[in-house]
């Protein structure tokens, strides 16, 4: 079936630098996308979401970009901090949403001091 995937399994950046985590999705019927952060030993934690009628959404230090033409989603984290080290997942939800989220494979973001 269709699924959400990530380009890079591990991303290492210097503290203070900006990071970009990419995600490709293949289900054109998806209309809602979420980025989750998962720290070791914890459950996924919501970071930011975006609906399919938008192409950009900003939060505190984070920005999500959605390119529906190429079915691409990205998460930008500005001025990375040690606490940003985690596994990041993109997830999609089709219209209706009763059958839950489809997650990508995850990118491990490592912040180097």
């Amino acid at each position, binding site marked *: 079936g269709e699924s959400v995937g990530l380009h890079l399994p591990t991303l290492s950046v210097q503290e203070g630098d900006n990071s970009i985590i990419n995600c490709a999705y293949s289900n054109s019927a998806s209309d809602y996308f*979420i980025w989750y952060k998962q720290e070791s030993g914890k*459950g996924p934690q919501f970071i930011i979401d975006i609906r399919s009628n938008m192409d950009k959404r900003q939060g505190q230090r984070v920005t999500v970009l959605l390119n529906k033409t190429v079915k691409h989603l990205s998460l930008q984290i500005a001025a990375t901090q040690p606490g940003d080290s985690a596994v990041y997942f993109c997830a999609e*939800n089709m219209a209706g*949403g009763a*059958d*839950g*989220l489809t*997650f990508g494979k995850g990118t491990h973001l490592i912040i180097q001091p």
Partner: protein
Amino acid sequence: DTAVSQTPKYLVTQMGNDKSIKCEQNLGHDTMYWYKQDSKKFLKIMFSYNNKELIINETVPNRFSPKSPDKAHLNLHINSLELGDSAVYFCASSLRGSKSEAFFGQGTRLTVV
């Protein structure tokens, strides 16, 4: 206050046993889920449950069964445990139709020996 809580956090058991994992949410959400996260961190939906409507991922063995005594609880029962069932299981909840994020519990690490 914990929004989505699941117990136990760790569960070690022998093959062939039957076990349950409990989940409770105090967010007033109408839909609850169970996800399985394997050793490669891949998260996959197992069940979604909304107002007595159960949607099952077709890949989930029938040894797994969710039980919902009320809207705030969705427990996961597993019969005849197998080695391959070892994983981290996450409960989550959301508001169906609102296109809002799902909130996750802290996870239950199940180890079958």
